[in-house]
């Protein structure tokens, strides 16, 4: 069975400082990994994904994430946080198409609060 852990319910960071939102995962095959962001009273928006290739992937709004196979992690990062980055962030994992479940499993979400 696949699973995702987001160990922090909330992350607080000052504007202009770097931010990290943590995610670890477990799958039976090769992982496809995703980050989504949910602004208040909105649906989820796709931020970035790791499918294959470079371990460092870049996405929307200046976010990036690093795939670490040995640590089974896919932490979301941004060099300089903005107040407008404050939102709920979800990590998701699924197996590659030749593997097990095609249905992504989502983490519980991490609330990012960026203070002015």
């Amino acid at each position, binding site marked *: 069975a696949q699973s995702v852990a987001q160990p922090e319910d909330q992350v607080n960071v000052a504007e202009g400082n770097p931010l990290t939102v943590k995610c670890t995962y477990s799958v039976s095959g090769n992982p496809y990994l995703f980050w989504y962001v949910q602004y208040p009273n909105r649906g989820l928006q*796709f931020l970035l994904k790791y499918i294959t290739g470079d371990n460092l992937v870049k996405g929307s709004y200046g976010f990036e994430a690093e795939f670490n196979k040995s640590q089974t992690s896919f932490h979301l990062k941004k060099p300089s946080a903005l107040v407008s980055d404050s939102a709920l962030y979800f990590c*998701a994992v699924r197996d590659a198409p030749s593997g097990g479940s095609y*249905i992504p499993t*989502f983490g519980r979400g991490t609330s990012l609060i960026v203070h002015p």
Partner: protein
Amino acid sequence: GAGVSQSPSNKVTEKGKDVELRCDPISGHTALYWYRQSLGQGLEFLIYFQGNSAPDKSGLPSDRFSAERTGGSVSTLTIQRTQQEDSAVYLCASSLEVTGGYEQYFGPGTRLTVT
């Protein structure tokens, strides 16, 4: 292009009534998912459609919930005899399911309130 759309955006219904929620996925996306999100909580998977394959209904919480997808496009989620615990935001998502296109695109959701 157009994203995933859902209707209605809000639905208030009385306990015991049936409701239908609609999802229009992105054109050409073969996979369609329904999720439920309670206030401040994570996503609860409900049902998954992929092309012409039989849907994966493993997440439906009870037999009061059903869904169909007509013509590989529009999907309707039906909740019969609604209960107060059904109150939540129901999210629909679609994905392309080909190389380079496995991310999900979500609709804005339908907020269901059962009184």
